[in-house]
């Protein structure tokens, strides 16, 4: 682009191309993304009563091994040892030599393609599953774009928390009805899928059809973790009320030593204040009127408390800058004393730190209500992650894929579970005194969940390599379980009409703005008014209708 050559046409086309490209990008990707069948009726709403009973698979539990720590009040059972010998739950090879493309999320490093783990599992399956794992932190955007296109993998995993906006509508349009293969007695053909509890299957009903393959979740899946080793060194006692938590923060934050008491604790602060969960469980009954989460006093109290933590400067600045992806690193590095995470990461962190920092000792805080009493913990949905099968697959391919999924869903203590979760003995783990220990290669290839997403056995806490973690984890969950309560519409998969898709999203920004000192708690009122006017009250009626026709799910 030298100034001396007046090549007008080329400049004009250059300009045209940039301006047009901008408009085209802004317009999304419609043409490349066109196609898709005609709109199907009955996408929205929920399914209950007889219609639901007719499509749910029969529950046939397989008790292959007894837990060392039995579950109480619905808490997950714990296994500290690996059963010897391992049971077999699938006879023969389930696959027929087919090849399936899969789309799954991943947190951390993507394993190499064609690695020994994939090869071994595919061989055992008798079919080839090709993975293309996508970053779990940006999966929401990815999935929205992929589902709008026509090139959808044969089996797609979608976590429940990624089903914002129109994703549930997309599920209804793009994925196969598995009812003809699994409803009622038909599931007995797949014994490991029949072993999945009914609640998890109920969550897998989208738009009146059984479409999902569930990954059952524990009754409570999030915790505040603390560094017992560091707290002991400081002589700190654990807080048992909101005030004590704030005092703890003030006492043990030492910015000069690069140590802050807390990371972003919002998820569990909500639990301390008995706040309702998110869509579609964000309603409670006040008399006979439905009240939304954002209309409750608890919502304001929880935000006001979170704001206090901000004002007291006891939250790590990088967490305040929304750098959530590094929360684990801040915690293991001693930058924070407490952080919030899914309980699933407990074992991963413990095993990761075992070599690097033998002192490292993380524990989960017993949850309390803000005033120091017993908390109200709303139960997590019975299934949190789902996989779906592309509706364009022919019947035989769907049957083959379901047979593979049945193999993958084998429960703890089976040869199949061992292969899926640990890989090949000698390559991915070694057994010492009956305890499987992952090798470095096992950590790279077999540890990140891939196949596991397709469907899982009922949730258990089974880490024979870290029996201490099992005891702590199962004990913690058993202590929380008595406080667990079912929210309204529990276990129901509700597909909201598209016109309400963007109603709730501004509150995600608003709560961050309030918690991080950019807006006032009182700004909620205006936002709630806008919400009501732009469809909130209609949405309330819509849910009241579901409540009347389909029941509360409790």
């Amino acid at each position, binding site marked *: 682009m030298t100034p001396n050559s007046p090549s007008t046409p080329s400049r004009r086309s250059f*300009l045209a*191309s940039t301006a047009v*490209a901008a408009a085209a990008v802004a317009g999304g990707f419609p043409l490349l993304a066109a196609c898709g069948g005609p709109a199907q009726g009955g996408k929205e709403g929920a399914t209950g009563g007889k219609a639901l009973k007719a499509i749910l698979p029969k529950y046939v539990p397989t008790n292959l091994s007894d837990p060392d720590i039995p579950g109480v009040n619905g808490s997950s059972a714990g296994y500290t040892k690996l059963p010897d010998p391992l049971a077999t739950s699938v006879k023969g090879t389930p696959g027929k030599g087919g090849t399936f493309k899969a789309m799954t999320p991943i947190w951390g490093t993507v394993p190499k393609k064609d690695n020994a783990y994939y090869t071994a599992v595919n061989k055992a399956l008798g079919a080839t599953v090709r993975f293309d794992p996508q970053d779990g932190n940006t999966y929401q955007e990815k999935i929205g774009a992929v589902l709008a296109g026509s090139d959808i993998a044969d089996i797609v995993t979608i976590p429940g928390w990624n089903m914002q906006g129109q994703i549930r509508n997309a599920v209804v349009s793009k994925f196969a009805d598995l009812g003809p293969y699994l409803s009622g007695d038909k599931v007995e053909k797949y014994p490991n899928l029949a072993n999945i509890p009914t609640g998890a299957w109920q969550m897998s009903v989208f738009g009146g059809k059984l479409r999902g393959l569930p990954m059952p979740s524990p009754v409570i899946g999030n915790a505040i973790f603390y560094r017992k080793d560091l707290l002991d060194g400081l002589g700190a006692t654990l807080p048992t009320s909101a005030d004590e938590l704030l005092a703890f923060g003030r006492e043990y934050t030492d910015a000069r030593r690069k140590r802050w008491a807390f990371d972003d604790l919002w998820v569990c602060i909500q639990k301390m204040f008995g706040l309702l969960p998110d869509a579609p469980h964000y309603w409670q009954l006040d008399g006979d009127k439905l009240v939304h989460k954002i209309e409750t006093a608890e919502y304001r109290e929880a935000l006001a408390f979170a704001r206090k933590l901000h004002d007291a400067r006891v939250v790590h600045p990088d967490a305040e800058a929304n750098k959530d992806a590094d929360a684990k690193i801040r915690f293991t590095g001693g930058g924070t004393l407490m952080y919030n995470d899914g309980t699933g990461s407990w074992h991963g962190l413990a095993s990761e730190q075992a070599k690097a920092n033998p002192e490292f000792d993380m524990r989960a805080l017993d949850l309390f209500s803000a005033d120091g009493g017993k908390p109200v913990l709303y139960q997590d949905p019975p299934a949190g992650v789902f996989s779906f099968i592309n509706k364009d697959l022919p019947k035989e391919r769907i049957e083959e894929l379901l047979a593979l999924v049945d193999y993958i869903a084998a429960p703890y203590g089976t040869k199949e579970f061992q292969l899926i979760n640990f890989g090949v003995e000698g390559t991915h783990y070694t057994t010492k005194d009956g305890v499987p220990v992952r090798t470095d290669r096992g950590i790279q290839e077999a540890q990140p969940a891939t196949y596991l997403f397709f469907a899982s056995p009922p949730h258990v806490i089974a880490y024979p390599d870290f029996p201490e973690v099992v005891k702590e984890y199962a004990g913690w969950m058993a202590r929380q379980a008595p406080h667990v309560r079912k929210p309204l519409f529990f276990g129901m998969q509700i597909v909201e009409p598209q016109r309400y898709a963007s109603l709730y999203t501004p509150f995600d920004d608003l709560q961050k703005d309030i918690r991080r000192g950019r807006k006032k708690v009182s700004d909620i009122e205006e936002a709630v008014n806008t919400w009501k006017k732009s469809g909130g009250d209609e949405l309330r009626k819509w849910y009241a209708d579901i409540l009347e026709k389909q029941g509360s799910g409790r």
Partner: protein
Amino acid sequence: MKDLELARGITRRQRFLRDRTLLLMTLPAVVLLLVFNYVPLLGNVVAFQEYDPYGAGITGSPFVGTYNFERLFLDNRFWEVLVNTLVIFFTQLVLFFPLPIALALLLNSVLNDRVRAWVQGIIYLPHFFSWVLVVTVFQQMLGGAGLIAQQLRERGIGGFDLMTDPGFFKFLLTAQSVWKDAGWGVIVFLAALAAVNSELYEAAAVDGAGRWRRMWHVTLPALRPVIALLLVLRVGSALNLDFEQILLQRDQVGPGAAEVLDTYIWWTGVRTGDFGYATAAGIFKGVFSVLMVLLANKVAHMLGEQGVYSKR
């Protein structure tokens, strides 16, 4: 000009035959342009639909007229976003745009080729860093737990956090852009400077012009067409801020300061699934940008410059 006069004497067909090789050579580019720029443009039709990408698609979604545009223009958030976009753009225009020119003049005055090559290499380098990396570096330096804040704390002075300050955000963005791209921006100006006939400098020097006079009367006039051209292009893409840079830092300061048109379109479209609405916002952006280019080009013409295109 002589060619042109000759060309007038021949018919369109003769011209076509004469230029056929050249025309054939442009064909791949034209096809690419059509397929990837013009054909997707048709997708803008979803702005007039209640578009359901997951079921009905473009052909099946119902038309709703200008409903999406009405929603857009009645939405307070949209106007806030537009203001944010323009504020950030003008901050960058004023604080960023002159820097590469100044740097180019500075580098041009360095006579030692080796030193010049080194400096150029170093200031180009950040251009090749991804935004993720740039943002992380800034967080590690200027964040609340960053190097500078931590040094201050150790000396008993209270820390600070420039990364989460909504008022500072537009300057933060500019600082990041300067660090990343000011060096890269120098290239065009250096090329223009290299094209200046050195006899002009000699002649000016003989006439007794000093350093400043030479810069004012020789160097800057030589740079004027490039500056005008780049300015027009920059204004034309005023609403096109660095999407990735802002998206990465949006939740750091909240949408009040950081939501710009591109992130808003992304948020409402890809994230929430309100594609019709997002496309309406995209069309607005496109039209607005074209108007800005025309305006800036007009101004360039009035100043006697050629601008991006000129009338024949």
